[in-house]
């Protein structure tokens, strides 16, 4: 008996995949959106993102050092969080804003719970919620970083004929979503007028511009196209799965179509839900945040419920809530429900017979 070989449990073949490869591929998938952010908002976007990533990685390393656990910054998960925090802020923000967000995201959103795999909330979204609550003016005001194209968007609305003088005031200094929100709530102009303006906002040219990213907003959610390219890559690599994004976006589409119009049920044009889907953080949220592995259900049915829940909450916030945008709070609220969802959506076993 000359040779003794090491033994291990089967299977003895392993797909080439690891925590590292998953996380770094997510980072890669976020790059097109970052490039578009730099393209539309300038070099400052890149700097803010770098500060944010550095803060996230350092925070992770320091806390892991204190906790006397292995330092796992190489796995890329803190990098993902850092990028996502930066993607949620406005390019005009001071440098310390994304830093504060990332420190909070990693420290309170992740390490307090025990690190990767144990966190209840998507850390980046928790970081964003912290920023919105702490510096509301810095985070929600001042979207109007002027780019030549943003100006052309504004003038396309301003150029509407026969508008009362006060309409432009409703829609200045705002993202497309806050324009729509303001139009729903405004009492300054008539309902019909508001509807006309809304139909002009949610029109094909605007949607096209939003799709390319030619619009005001935060760094990472400007270009739906760039985000979709990254999402397609992740789907191709089986890192994200269709159920959450499709059920989330599908729910938003249906609900906005039913309730989104100004003059009662089904009064919206079909373009309005499309406009809602490509505006704000929905694409980023649905493909990159709601699909966060750690904080979404593992069962297939559970993922559908999770997506639908996110969709309902997003629409409720966008239409009747206090904010123009509700993606991040919707996902955070649904994060809480994940253990419950998993518990009640145990899949039917192959060949299952009733006991």
């Amino acid at each position, binding site marked *: 008996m000359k040779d*003794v070989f090491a033994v*291990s*449990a089967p*299977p*003895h*073949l392993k797909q080439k995949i690891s925590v590292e490869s998953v996380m770094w591929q997510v980072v890669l998938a976020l790059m097109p959106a970052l490039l578009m952010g730099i393209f539309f908002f300038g070099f400052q976007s890149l700097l803010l993102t770098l500060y944010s990533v550095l803060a996230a990685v350092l925070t992770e390393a320091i806390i892991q050092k204190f906790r006397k656990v292995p330092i796992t910054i190489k796995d890329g998960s803190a990098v993902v969080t850092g990028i996502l925090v930066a993607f949620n802020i406005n390019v005009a923000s001071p440098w310390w804003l994304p830093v504060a967000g990332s420190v909070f995201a990693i420290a309170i959103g992740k390490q307090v719970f025990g*690190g990767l795999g144990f966190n209840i909330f998507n850390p980046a979204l928790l970081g964003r919620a912290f920023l919105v609550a702490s510096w509301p003016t810095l985070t929600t005001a001042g979207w109007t970083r002027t780019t030549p194209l943003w100006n052309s968007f504004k003038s396309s609305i301003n150029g509407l004929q026969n508008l009362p003088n006060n309409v432009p005031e409703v829609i200045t200094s705002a993202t497309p979503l806050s324009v729509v929100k303001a139009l729903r709530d405004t009492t300054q102009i008539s309902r019909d007028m508001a509807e006309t303006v809304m139909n002009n906002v949610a029109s094909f040219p605007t949607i096209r511009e939003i799709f390319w990213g030619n619009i005001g907003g935060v760094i990472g959610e400007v270009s739906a196209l760039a985000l979709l390219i990254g999402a397609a890559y992740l789907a191709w690599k089986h890192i994200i799965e269709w159920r959450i994004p499709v059920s989330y976006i599908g729910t938003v589409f249906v609900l906005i179509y039913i309730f989104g119009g100004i003059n009662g049920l089904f009064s919206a044009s079909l373009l309005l839900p499309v406009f809602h889907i490509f505006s704000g953080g929905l694409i980023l949220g649905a493909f990159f945040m709601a699909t966060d592995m750690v904080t979404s259900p593992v069962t297939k049915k559970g993922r559908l419920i999770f997506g639908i829940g996110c969709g309902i909450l997003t629409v409720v916030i966008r239409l009747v809530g206090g904010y123009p945008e509700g993606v991040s709070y919707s996902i955070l609220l649904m994060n809480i429900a994940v253990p419950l969802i998993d518990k009640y959506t*145990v899949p039917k076993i192959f060949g299952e017979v009733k006991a």
Partner: protein
Amino acid sequence: MGLRTFPGGVHPHDEKHYSKDSAIEELPLPKKVVIPISQHIGAPSQPIVKKGDEVKTGQIISEANGFVSIPMHASITGKVTKIGKFYHPNGSMAQAIEITGNGEDDWIELSEEKEIDSLTADEIKSRIAEAGICGMGGAGFPTHVKLSPPKDKFIDTVILNGVECEPYLTADYRLMLERSKDIIQGLKLLMKTVSAKQGIIGIEANKPDAIEIFEKLLKNENNLKAIPLKLKYPQGAEKQLIYATTKRSVPNKGGLPMDVNVVVQNVGTTIAVLEAVKYRKPLIDRIITVSGRIVKNPKNIKARIGTYFSDLLEFAGGTTEEIGKVISGGPMMGFAISTLETPMAKTSSGLLLFDQKLAQKEAERICLRCGRCVDICPMNLVPSLIAHNVKHEDWEMAEKYGVMDCMKCGSCAYVCPSHIKLIQWIDIGKIKVSAQKK
């Protein structure tokens, strides 16, 4: 696409190119064999020889112990030199009978019967039982038991498993190419035994020549057909094969193929059955694939049961590099064994040699809850949550997420980015949950 298959599953590279073109070669008589008394599911057999006894090839050396059990036979001629604990191809140490050969191959008398058509089903089954045949695909369930459904169950379909979905293995493939007519005759015999109306041979799409052979041979048979199946692991798992070929779902919680009127037999088993019925030849040899990148001449070898793996590897020319891991069976469900001084059993479909790199073990990381295991589980279980609950000793939840219905195909561990040893945890869960029920 359009090929039939089952829901879920994974796509490891099939690695069959190493050995698929090597025709079956017979291993010269080994000097020594070690025959474990338990090579099957059911009660271990009872040795009826003692140390020093002379035995002939094919002579019974260990009797079946009850109905769900099979006898063992001497696979070479010589002397019983030890009865005791030996390495078993499942990685454990188990009771076995060692025979040292005298260089002869002196067989017990076999009866060549030309007229097997006149045999009754009971006669066929008793010949199968006497020959000590169990499922040779890997599980090792006694074949005569599978062919004996209780009175309230009837069988209408016999499915031959020619899928061989485990990577590397090509033993069944070579049998299908080289002994296709015997396989068809064996299928008809099985159908007669259980009075089945139709016979199906399920073959995975990566064996187009085997599919072609059977489609040609079965052209004029209206109740027999070959069904090509999509290349996907574990296409050859019994329940998945039944679903793919007949759309019938075997009930969970211990349901059997006979519950959906089906019997499944591996193609190798089918040939053993034919030989047992025709010649009364006991199961003392089988085809085994010896393969791996580092094997000098990967081969499909016809070898006597009890042959040491070291003899098989020597016949295949040894290895070109240092061995990292030795696997008995396929790479997905087979056992890593600690020594080549381990004998092959009736269920040994492969001997695989992995290099150091393939043998590398990754540390288990925390579950990311990515759900990849849930997406691909062919039994539609929640492997990650089973493992989680086993770790936390919540047996009730482990059972709820399906621990007892797991067939341990290993697909979940294959796709896990955190390298969690899901099959190991599930094994613990199975043991604990069944212990609790007692």
